[in-house]
């Protein structure tokens, strides 16, 4: 537990600096069906990001959509060299529908980078991630970081059908091995994924597990991790108001040292130790 405690210590200290900044929309295209890729022209000072961090977006107000609070979005890509910030988002409600109306040249006020991202410890040579839907947005920058650090990455990408699989090329470009599983092909069930992962563990090819979001996947990876003694991290979500740690609305429960503690997803997270995270 020492590792996690230290991490928690680092997490609760100030994260450096976050900025409220105006960006300009470069493009905002549909990726497939309900997903969109938003590319922003962003100032350098906000592009010093870590994989797993997020921004808090001030969605535009229109006659049709009038969101009030900001909306949290994981960083899908950050490219200081070309001054770009990317988000991959699913059009869900008032805020994301307003986002979908953004046109090139429009401005967007963003706050970030926020929160604590994924860590890759020195002795984690073989990384394995499982992602589906917008979870890909959160996990994609991890592939980039893995390549930078020269680690081997396996990405299990899940989707409803092969046609709506996203980001596969992006992971391959980053040198990751990609395993696609889909509902349509009947390969995305929990037990199928367990089998795939345990086969790799047996081959000594997994030092750390990464995922985000769903309860079922958390349970599966917790179980696998505990059984085989493999550490892991998960990015969690929660309703957010401030995104900075001030309002305490975004808490979730964690098991630590046999106690249940509350931590703020925006501040201590959004990435947490896989075994400490509690299902919901």
């Amino acid at each position, binding site marked *: 537990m020492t590792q996690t405690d230290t991490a928690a210590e680092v997490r609760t200290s*100030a*994260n*450096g*600096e*976050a*900025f*409220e900044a105006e960006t300009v929309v470069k493009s905002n295209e549909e990726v497939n069906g309900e997903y969109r890729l938003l590319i922003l022209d962003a100032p350098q000072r906000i592009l010093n990001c870590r994989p797993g961090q997020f921004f808090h977006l*001030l969605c535009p107000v229109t006659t049709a959509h*009038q*969101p*009030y*609070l*900001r909306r949290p979005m994981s960083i899908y890509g950050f490219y200081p060299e070309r001054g770009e910030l990317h988000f991959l988002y699913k059009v869900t409600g*008032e805020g994301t529908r307003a986002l979908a109306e953004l046109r090139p040249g429009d401005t967007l*006020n963003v*706050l970030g980078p926020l929160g604590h991202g994924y860590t890759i410890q020195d002795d984690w040579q073989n990384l394995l991630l499982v992602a589906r839907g917008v979870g890909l947005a959160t996990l994609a920058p991890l592939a980039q970081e893995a390549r930078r650090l020269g680690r081997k990455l396996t990405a299990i990408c899940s989707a409803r059908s092969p046609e709506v699989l996203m980001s596969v090329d992006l992971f391959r470009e980053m040198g990751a091995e990609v395993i696609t599983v889909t509902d349509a092909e009947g390969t995305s069930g929990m037990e199928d994924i367990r089998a795939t992962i345990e086969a790799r563990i047996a081959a000594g090819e997994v030092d750390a597990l990464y995922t985000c979001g769903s309860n079922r996947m958390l349970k599966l990876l917790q179980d696998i991790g505990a059984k085989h003694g493999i550490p892991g991290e998960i990015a969690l979500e*929660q*309703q*957010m*108001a*401030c*995104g*900075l*740690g*001030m*309002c*305490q*609305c*975004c*808490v*979730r429960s964690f098991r630590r040292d046999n106690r249940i503690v*509350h931590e703020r997803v925006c*501040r201590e997270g959004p990435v947490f130790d896989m075994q400490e995270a509690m299902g919901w």
Partner: protein
Amino acid sequence: MVDLTAKIGALTLKNPIMPASGTFSEDLADVIDMNALGAHVTKTITREKRGGNPTPRVCEVRGSMLNSIGIPSKGIDYFIQNVIPFYQKYDVPLIVSISANNADDFARICEEISVPGVDAIEVNISCPNIEEDGKAFAMRPSTTHQVMTQLRGASDLPLWAKLSPNTGETSEVAQAAEDAGADALVVANTLLSMAIDIHSRKPKLGNLMGGLSGPSLKPITLRMAYQCAKAVDIPVIGCGGISKAEDVIEYLIAGASAVQVGTATFINPTAMITIIAELEAYMAANGMADLSALVGSVRDDDAADAVVFMETAP
């Protein structure tokens, strides 16, 4: 040069802009210069440790938000050891907000928190989440008077009483607080509200109900600030729905001596900094030397047919 100084009883603030309790913490130092603010106001604490309410703790309503955070608290010892020292780095008065579920506990924390580094105590007698069905001390003049009297006996620091918009007796509650020795009034806290998700049919807040804050609240709390300024002689600190300098000016004209900015900081973490700059620019442009040019200057004598007509003929 414009003098933005605001005097709240014995306390002098470099400007009339401060955060509202529960919408501010050390974390904001990541984004703004904390030294720019008129005061630092901390989230309400209780003596004992508390967990806060079930999630979801916030939801959005048209143009505003509801919250039912409750008062998660690490307790007074943690606060004295960790939080007060953080704020002592800054050249800004520290206002500590406290609460309790009965008058005795309230007096106890009031006494215990009266330590060096604390410049005033804000008394949250109005939080609609603690007591059942929103019936807090601040709902009635009698309960307000009782608890404020006991608190007055417990500390020599300035006491700011934070009122509630859930009462039907705003002026009477304000007078009760003044009479019992409050040094200032903060007007006001959030208003008890509700929202339901029509798909799941569940209340959007884990706590069923919560407090409305943000722009929707402004016309209500502005009315209360006006009523209080008429009803008492101690300073009134306006709070509710402020998001721009014009809102601050409106509260000052209504009679407030300073203001607190809450939810706006969630939307724009730099809101208070922008507001201070814009307030100064407005006063300079209008030749106002200090806040006395604004505070309480509402022209409420002539309630005449005062509609503004456009320029149409010579």
